[in-house]
């Protein structure tokens, strides 16, 4: 589970731990927060370990997986959640901010999936769930880098799903709309309000609501679901990229 030290990632880690999965809590910068996630996992009676690394770097990814395999054995389930935002209008967006977001949010899931698939293929079973964003479906002004990475993630998920379906490995994407997490605190208040209004439910989602969707996609109940996109957005995207009308 990458990006599991806080927010949606933490909620997913807890949901999986509560279901009896051994959870590796991946983090890049939030060591203390990752420890908090571990404490919470402990509290729900689960077992976890924190693993530090940058998912955008191939050598780090290898190190992360090697550490997890040494502690828990083969990785059977991968949840790609690690992400960053570096918002700005395209005209003013620096190349560095473009690249960093693409590297963490798109290279990262690819590198982790590629590494995880080696073991999954051997065992003829695996679950990969990518955490996307409604920004990748609808577009998002001021987030051309983030939206591009998240849109790319959908294509990546579907392609991977086709490549490994015959081996009983599923690859799906959960696509949250605006969720109340730390990442949103970096957006202007006005934008947050606007995002809430874009959902027919006229509210933001919770991390737990995303976690439950992820938990479903890795459960045995979802064995025939692959290459799918599961929106958790209060009806914001309704499966398409057509223009949405803000709730009045």
């Amino acid at each position, binding site marked *: 589970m990458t990006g599991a030290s806080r927010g949606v990632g933490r909620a997913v880690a807890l949901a999986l731990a509560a279901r009896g999965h051994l959870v590796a809590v991946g983090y890049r910068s939030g060591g203390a927060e990752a420890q908090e996630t571990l404490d919470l996992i402990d509290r729900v009676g689960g077992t976890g370990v924190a693993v530090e690394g940058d998912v955008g770097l191939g050598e780090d990814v290898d190190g992360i997986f090697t550490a997890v395999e040494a502690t828990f054995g083969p990785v059977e389930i991968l949840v790609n959640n690690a992400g960053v935002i570096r918002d700005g209008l395209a005209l003013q967006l620096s190349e560095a901010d473009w690249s960093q977001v693409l590297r963490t949010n798109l290279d990262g899931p690819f590198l982790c999936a590629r590494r995880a698939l*080696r073991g999954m*293929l051997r065992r003829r079973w695996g679950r990969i769930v990518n955490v996307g964003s409604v920004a990748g479906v609808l577009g998002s002004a001021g987030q051309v880098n983030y939206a591009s990475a998240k849109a790319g993630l959908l294509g990546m998920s579907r392609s991977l799903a086709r*490549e*490994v379906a*015959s*081996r009983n490995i599923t690859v799906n994407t959960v696509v949250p709309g605006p969720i109340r997490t730390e990442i949103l605190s970096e957006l202007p208040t006005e934008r947050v309000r606007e995002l809430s209004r874009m959902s027919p439910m006229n509210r933001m989602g919770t991390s737990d609501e995303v976690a439950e969707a992820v938990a479903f996609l890795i459960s045995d109940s979802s064995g025939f679901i692959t290459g799918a996109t599961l929106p958790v957005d209060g009806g914001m995207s309704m499966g398409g990229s057509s223009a949405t009308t803000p709730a009045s």
Partner: protein
Amino acid sequence: MNRDDIFKATVEACSEILGVSEDTVTHDAVLRDDLDADSLDLAELAMALEDRIGVSVPEQDFKQVATVSDTLDLLEQHLAAARS
């Protein structure tokens, strides 16, 4: 590790990954046709052989392989290069 050892490892890996009986894995067997391997099977086979034989082979090189004998040639070549 000599050619016979590599052949033995290849037979075992083919049997395990492709689900074919070991006696069908002959030197002349064409991986895609005779052993019914698809692209993903070949990628898995390459990984398994790298693990068993302990040599790293670029993916591009494996793509050129058609028969079991080609596979042995390639692995032998890389083993020799690794030793020198």
